[in-house]
Each structure stands twice: as C-alpha cells, then as structure tokens.
C-alpha cells in the first residue's frame, strides 16, 4: 500500500521542482487533465467500494480521459468553441456524483458496522 503513496509523494515533489514553463494558453489543457485525473480517481475508488473495480479499466480510463480532455480542449481552442467548458462540466458533474456515491457507501458501511458492534 505504501508504494502508490510514495509514487504520489514523488510525483508532487517532481511537479514542484520542475522549472519547465508551459505557455499560458496551454494551462487550460493542464487544468482539464487534472480534472479528468481526479474524476477517474474517484471513479476508481467508487468502483472499488462497489466491488466492480477493474484495474485495466481504471488505468486505461485514467490516461485516456486525461488525453481526451486535453485534446477536446485543444480542438475547442482551434474551433473557436469553448469545448473545454463541456469537459469541465461533464467531469465536474461526474466528480460530484462519484463523491456522493462514495459517501453513501461509506455511510452505509459505517452504519452496518455500528449495528454489528451493537448486536454482538
């Protein structure tokens, strides 16, 4: 379990230490990608809690969503349509839904655990 945590820490350190500057117009893509990553992450957690977690789906969804979101934003910029807003909207809604589901599952688990403890 400590390996992914270490990966996260290393990633954060790398991100903070890199002095690479990307042009300002590309920061949109990055934010979309971050949003997509969050969405996938919470989706994965939800799937895990619902016992329908599949690693392949998670990993492929993670990278694919990031790239899709970025390319959608790219396309939007070149078409003159603010398509990244669509991505933000879609990912935002899904993020909230996923978090709500996780919350409910956790609540249910917590309640059943409590009942179990009280019963036993």
């Amino acid at each position, binding site marked *: 379990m400590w390996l*992914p945590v270490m*990966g*996260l820490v290393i990633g*954060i*350190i*790398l*991100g*903070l230490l890199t002095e690479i500057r990307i042009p300002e117009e590309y920061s949109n893509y990055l934010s979309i990608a971050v949003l997509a*990553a969050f969405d996938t*992450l919470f989706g994965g957690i939800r799937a895990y809690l619902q016992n329908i977690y599949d690693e392949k789906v998670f990993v492929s969804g993670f990278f694919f969503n990031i790239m899709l979101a970025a390319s959608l934003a790219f396309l939007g910029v070149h078409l003159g349509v603010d398509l990244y807003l669509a991505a933000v909207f879609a990912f935002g809604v899904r993020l909230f839904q996923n978090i709500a589901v996780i919350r409910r599952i956790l609540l249910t688990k917590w309640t059943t655990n409590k009942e179990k403890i009280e019963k036993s």
Partner: protein
Amino acid sequence: MKKIKVKVKGKNVILSLVFLVLGFMIAFSYHLTQIENQNAPRNLSGNQYEKTLALRNQLIAQEETNRRLQKELTQKQEMVQKNEKSLAKEAQVFLNVAEDAEKYRMFLGKMKVKGKGVKITLSDGAYDPKEDNVNNYLVHEQHVFKVVNELYISGAAAVAINGQRLTSRSYIVCNGPVITVDGVPHPAPFIITAIGEPDVLSSSLNLSGGVKDQLVNDNLVFTLERENEIVLNPILGS
C-alpha cells in the same frame, strides 16, 4: 503464493505509476498557478482602473506643471544672473565714482587729509638798525604768495597757512601787521604746510635764484623741513 505476490506487486506498480502522474500533474498545476499569480499583474476592476487612470492623469498634469515651472525658474534665474552682472558693473562704476568723489573732496578741502610733505616757516628778519624801512625785513603777502604759488606749481596737493587750508577761491590780503587768509588774520611767523612729494617740493623751492633766494634777499628767515606726515584739517564752513 509467489504469483499472488507478484500480481499484487504489479498492481501496486501500476497504481503507483498512476499516482505518480496524478501527483505530478496536481503539483505542476499548483506550481504553475502560483507562478502565474505572482507574475501577472493584479486584475483591476473598472472602478480601480478609473481611479488609477485619474491618478495617472493627475500625475502627468503635475509633471507637466513641474516642467513648465522648472523652465520658468531657469529663465528667471538667468534674468537674475543678468541683473546681478549689471549690478556688479554698476557697483564698480559707483565705486569708481565714489573714489573720485573722495579724491575731489580731498582736493577741495572738505575732509581731513594726510600725507608726506614739507613745512616752510617764514619769519620776519631780525631788527636791523641800519635799515630805515621796517618793511624791508617783514614778511609780506607777496612772499607768502610766492611760496604758495611755487608749491602749487611743483605739484602740491594741498597747502595750508598756519594750519588753514587754501582753496581755489582763497585770498590772501596784507592787512597791516597781519596777513588775512580768507578773512582770518594770521600773524608772523607763517608756517606753510604742503602735501606733496617732499623731494620735488623742496628742490623746487631751493632752486638757485628761486623762491628761497629771493626771500632770503628780502631779509626773511626761511626754514624748510620735510615731514613724513602732515595732517590738514578740513576747511571750516565748507
């Protein structure tokens, strides 16, 4: 057992890769946003913008005024300099005039004068029983005239008889036993003081056949002294 471990490890590796990418992206985005916030000028609201604009305009106006005033100041300073120069010139002129006035006043006897010169004493000759006429050994006004004229001719700046300064309008009159200089009677002996170059004055008086010899011929006692400092008082009532 081994397979499961490996499987778990592989799972963890993929997961950590995912987390690495996630952490990197989050940190990078955070970092970037912070840099942008630092670099980008703070966004101004319309109100603030207008205020800034007004202040800027005010500043520009102020600077323009400053510039104009600075120019004016420079011009004024130049004028002051010019005036000062002309004043200095005038002061020089005035100084010259004042010096001249001083000099002329000295010549006119309106102030006390001091300088090197000679002192000549003319006394009556000793009583001589052989001489019938007492006038033959008394000092007369023409003797005084001679001495005074000779002194003036040889360049005396100021002449006084018994301490009374002579002017250009002085008159010397023989009045019985005394000589009247400008109405003031003076008895013998007459001390004639003159300011001027002592050498020149004395040598001109001592010329052979000159004033001294003539006076001595008239039986007068003539003494001449050089003085380093002669002080002549101003003419009274001038």
